[in-house]
């Protein structure tokens, strides 16, 4: 049994008089202790996927198909009271821009204390205060800074405080949506190093969502690449991005374009051509492959038939007509 099992999940948004499928039959698994990264451009459905696990989708969204099992509990269809027992204790989340989510007029230690007491009403006061200091230490905030207000913290420190809060009730799964976006390179690296060490010390599983392939590569064991609501490629980090110092093995042209979009300081000093165009409008029907309009290798079949999911090696799959052709 995996810690998290998502099967055939679809998320629909009501938009005006129509609807839009942001997540389209997505399946993924996270084993205990594993870190999985979901990567894709803005609008690919990765944030909706992340929000659907704790059932925190906005009001105009519905889960129209599929199942989400967390430690064998089916979350789809669960009532709010039951969900509240699992939120923070089984699954916690650090949102995009979370460092601006702290209450500006309350000291940081106080806010973490509240998070603990809100979810564990039996906790003794002294024990909880001790836990706050433990948590701050865990994320690298010195006890002397515990009584600071959020504005006295840098972006990186605020993100550390948010992570401390998320870990307050010892969740087994942490969902981190763009945890380093808007931080400076050194602070980014510090937060990624923190996530990577927390995985080990706290026995934490991680679902990390980011547009930044290099950030995902640095923390995650496995990668799911999403495009326009569907999974286009999945595999271990090594299967998709190659071993350190070796070139990437990505099979899907979209993954290849994502990898090429940022220059590799240990690779060739060239500016990759980038990716022309935009993702398709999901409120309109799409025939064939969703990436066909932007794909440098698109064939006529790509605009007619949805590409099959091809297994490249054990655990590494991609959905592309090119692969079928090569395999045949």
């Amino acid at each position, binding site marked *: 049994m995996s810690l998290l099992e998502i099967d055939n999940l679809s998320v629909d948004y009501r938009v005006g008089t129509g609807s839009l499928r942001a997540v389209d039959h997505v399946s993924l698994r996270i084993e205990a202790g594993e870190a999985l990264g979901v990567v894709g451009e803005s609008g690919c459905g990765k944030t909706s996927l992340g929000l659907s696990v704790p059932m925190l989708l906005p009001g105009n969204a519905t889960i129209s198909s599929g199942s989400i099992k967390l430690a064998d509990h089916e979350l789809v269809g669960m009532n709010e009271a039951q969900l509240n027992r699992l939120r923070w204790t089984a699954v916690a989340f650090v949102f995009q821009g979370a460092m601006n989510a702290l209450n500006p007029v309350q000291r940081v230690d106080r806010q973490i204390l509240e998070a603990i007491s809100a979810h564990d009403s039996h906790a003794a006061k002294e024990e909880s205060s001790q836990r706050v200091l433990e948590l701050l230490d865990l994320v690298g905030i010195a006890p002397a800074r515990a009584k600071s207000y959020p504005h006295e913290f840098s972006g990186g420190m605020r993100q550390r405080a948010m992570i401390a809060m998320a870990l307050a009730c010892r969740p087994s799964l942490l969902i981190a949506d763009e945890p380093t976006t808007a931080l400076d*390179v*050194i602070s980014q*690296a*510090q937060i990624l190093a923190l996530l990577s060490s927390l995985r080990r010390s706290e026995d934490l599983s991680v679902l990390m969502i980011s547009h930044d392939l290099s950030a995902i590569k640095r*923390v995650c064991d496995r990668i799911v690449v999403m495009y326009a609501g569907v999974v286009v490629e999945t595999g271990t980090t090594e299967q998709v991005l190659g071993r350190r110092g070796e070139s990437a093995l990505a099979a899907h042209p979209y993954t290849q374009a994502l990898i090429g979009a*940022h220059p590799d300081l*240990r690779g060739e000093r060239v*500016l990759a051509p*980038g990716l022309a165009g935009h993702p398709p409008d999901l409120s309109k029907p799409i025939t064939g492959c969703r990436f066909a309009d932007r794909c440098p290798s698109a064939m006529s079949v790509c605009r007619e038939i949805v590409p099959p999911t091809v297994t490249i090696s054990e655990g590494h799959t991609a959905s592309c007509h090119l692969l079928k052709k090569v395999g045949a």
Partner: protein
Amino acid sequence: MSVTAEQSETTRARVLEVRDLVVRFAGRGKGRRARAVRAVDGVSFDIEQGEILALVGESGCGKSTIALAVMRLLEPTSGRIISGGENLATLRGGALRQARRRIQMIFQDPFGSLNSRQTVFDTVAEPLVIHKLGATPEERRSMVMDALELAHLRPPERLAQSYPHELSGGQRQRVAIASAMVMRPELVIADEPVSMLDVSARAGILRLMMDLRDQLGTSYLFITHDLAVAWVVADRIAVVYLGRIVEIGPATRLVERPAHPYTAALLSVSSGDDVGPDGELIEALPGETPSASNVPEGCRFHPRCPRYIELGKPEQCRSVDPQLHVIRPRTTTNEDTSALSPHEAACHFSSEES
């Protein structure tokens, strides 16, 4: 900085010389508590014709303040900014306006930098109007169309009539580039020109900047937080930390052999080299950049410096402010001068190459 006048005969014409630039802001608080913010704390560099110099650093390091001071969009506290034989730092009124024709700027946010009520034509024509260029409306029109064409805004006739909201982020940034290029500047200051664009649009804008350099010999001061992008786009890189250039040199050389420990840390996180033998990430640098109102004594980097710890905390690092010194001198040939420029670092323990 050790670049001196006699070396200039082996180089192309200089379009910009910045010497000992200082920008301070008054601190908050009263009396002793009012400490000046040393945003730019003694910065010198040159840009040659057709050269792209990247200023790389984290937010708050002073790289954008350097750009604004060069444009005289804020007043430098001291220092010289030489362009076209004039010191921009002391020019006033009409003379400053004249000098500004030679230097144009592109900002980070193509959504905020364009007037949403102006057509692309009017936006691009505006600098011509301000500087009273183009004798007839026809002449002005053809200058605008040329600039749109240069920025690959095609077809120019149709795009000229559109408004910013009809354009993608990448197209808007091309409009910003067109309105800079319509003045045919010697130097373009591009402050994080691709940071707010989708991954898909970035390469196109960077490629365009490089093409304009090749076609027209435009020089760039390219400001970015992204060392990898700087490495691909720029001829030379200057790494800025807490208001100072701590290392400067040819882009390839700086990435292959960083001399300053701060550059080495940036490089290790940007290239993904910060991984331990067991696959766990290693913290490249401890702590955070101090405030520019509280610059550490001695070497400003020493409180976070891995080399300082390794060397057993030498006293020199705490007491003496290191200046840029040559690690590898300029190689004297007339070929690609940028690649052969001197490599300098401001660290007591970055030794000269024999």
